[in-house]
């Protein structure tokens, strides 16, 4: 029983259970949900779609995990997605023949640079000026979409440069290309945080910044780079979003993404109070959100009404993670047992 106890108490456990439950539910109630077919050498099916469409949120969730681990929050990521998409679209240009204005790689690097700068701005406000994270990133959340609109001159830019489409629409070895990007970023982040002391530093800062500083950790720099990294992740997500639809819409690109990303992190077991973080948990969290969305659609619920289910899941999930709630339930059980 002790292994069960330790497993069921691990923070990633509930996320896995939820994901498994969702998949099992779909196995029984959604016809063809699990079917993956091969067409034109690509894998097709709901499961592949979940991976493919979940990629931007997964990327954001990776960056957000580290931010939340330092007891911070970055609500600007959705706007940074729009900024990155706008920047890359402007740099590639809407040439109908598909000739990019600047080489595509240069354009992508430019967009990522802008996103990193956005992240640095957040990091500076939080770590150097000492603003509250939610407010510091609120600045860019509010202004960011305006900046994106300035880039594209308030137009929706359509792109025709074919090679750029690979990012969001391409397939490699049967799998969507963007999944490899997520895998790569996840691997690098994992190695960098878990195979070096950086992960521990981040957790230390999240648990007690003052204590972390007294034990010789440069808390300010850790915080600064964590936000910068979140900006980079948002930038990459922005490239994928733009490439998927070959369009940059400063108004709607990345809309509500910040909320999904935060949700993914929390579902994955990382506490909003900072401290221990679970990168893999956040990825699972993003998958839960995406699976939930697909499930809801499969049941013919209008896309716009889907958030209702999302909300109920979030409430149920945060309750399960609340120590107070667990205690209440446990007490209710015990009382029942004594009475019996």
């Amino acid at each position, binding site marked *: 029983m002790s292994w069960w106890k330790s497993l069921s108490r691990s923070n990633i456990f509930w996320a896995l259970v939820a994901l498994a439950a969702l998949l099992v539910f779909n196995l029984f109630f959604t016809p063809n949900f699990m079917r993956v077919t091969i067409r034109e050498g690509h894998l097709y099916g709901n499961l592949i779609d979940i991976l493919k469409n979940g990629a931007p949120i997964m990327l954001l969730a990776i960056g957000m995990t580290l931010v939340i681990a330092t007891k911070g929050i970055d609500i600007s990521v959705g706007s940074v997605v729009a900024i990155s998409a706008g920047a890359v679209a402007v740099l590639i240009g809407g040439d109908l023949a598909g000739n990019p204005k600047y080489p595509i790689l240069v354009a992508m690097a430019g967009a990522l640079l802008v996103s990193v700068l956005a992240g640095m701005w957040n990091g500076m406000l939080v770590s150097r*000026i000492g603003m*509250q994270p*939610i407010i510091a990133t609120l600045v860019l959340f509010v202004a960011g979409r305006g*900046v994106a609109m300035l880039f594209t001159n308030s137009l929706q830019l359509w792109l025709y440069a074919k090679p750029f489409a690979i990012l969001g629409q391409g397939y490699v070895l049967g799998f969507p290309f963007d999944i490899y990007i997520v895998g790569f970023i996840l691997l690098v982040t994992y190695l960098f945080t878990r195979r070096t002391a950086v992960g521990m530093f981040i957790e230390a800062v999240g648990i007690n910044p003052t204590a972390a500083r007294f034990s010789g950790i440069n808390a300010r720099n850790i915080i600064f780079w964590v936000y910068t990294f979140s900006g980079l992740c948002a930038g990459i997500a922005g490239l994928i979003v733009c490439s998927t639809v070959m369009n940059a819409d400063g108004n709607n690109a990345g809309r509500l993404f910040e909320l999904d990303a935060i949700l993914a992190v929390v579902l994955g077991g990382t506490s909003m109070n900072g401290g221990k973080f679970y990168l893999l948990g956040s990825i699972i969290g993003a998958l839960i959100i995406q699976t939930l969305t697909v499930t809801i659609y499969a049941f013919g619920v*209008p896309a716009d009404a889907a958030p*209702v289910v999302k909300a109920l899941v*979030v409430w149920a999930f945060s309750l399960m993670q609340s120590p107070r709630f667990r205690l209440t339930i446990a007490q209710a059980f015990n009382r029942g047992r004594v009475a019996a």
Partner: protein
Amino acid sequence: MKRMAGFRNLPMFVTLGLFIVMFGTGSIAFPGFFSVQNFLNLFIDNSFLLILAVGMTFVIISGGIDLSVGSVLALSGMVTAKLLEQVHMSPLLVIPIVLAMGTALGLFMGYLIQTFELPPFIVTLAGLYLARGLCYIVNLFTIAVTNPYFVAAAHAQVFIIGTSFLSPGAIVAIVVVLVGFFVSRYTKFGRTVFAIGGSEQSAILMGLPVARTKIAIYGLSGFCAALAGLVFTLYTLSGYGLNGSGMELDTIATVVIGGTLLTGGVGNIFGTVLGVFVYGTIQTLIVFQGTLNSWWTRIAIGFLVFVFCLLQRLFESRKARAAVRGPLTQPAGAGASQG
């Protein structure tokens, strides 16, 4: 003590100064800008934002946050339109139903936050999703409001000075502001809200009804959001699921510009009103200017939030330095303080 109070209200006076400068600049630059009506328009065009912001001020003073208000506004508009137009209920019934619905949702979220110690950010985020989704369950498309009472109220003009008028929605907003100010300053509930924001632990030790008050705060915010939804329906004469999206953050921004500290414990309803005025004036200026696109509003608001937070940080660090003047001076750059 008196100096301390002035110190705390300084951000509010800065906002007041900013508002006067902005309104003055507009009056000099654009003919027809300076008029009583243009000032009253700030109330008319931002009536729903004012109501939301009053509720939000209470939440933020208590150290919490409510992200659901924009969606609850949309939901109450949607339910109002549905009940009036498709169920053909009397407005006398619809209004209390909608207000009760918003309050109940707020109380429920407050209950989750208080009883199970869940983070307000997450609970109200889910509230945002829930209300937004429910809008589309009520109806997928816009419902136009043609109920004669609502239409009459929407077009009604209450003359204040000469031909300058206020709309009924604006009057509701003004009443909410006045009641909000009174409650925050002169009632047990209001003082408890400040105490919770200052230090929840101390508030509990002082024997204040912390649990009850915290739940009530979110109920109040839900009530304000529902009321704002009714006023918004009057303003647009329709219910639509996309209404008020992003308004929660606009509301938070105006509260911050008004000088309320996000760390809780410090805030002022009149400051919030000034924050809404500044927000509204920026929009009016951009409309009068004509060539700037409306996206500059977002950038300007973002910039103002930045400036005001900078200001708040400045005051805080000054206060901290004044407090620690002694042998135990904090080392330079005392770490990044996190909320």
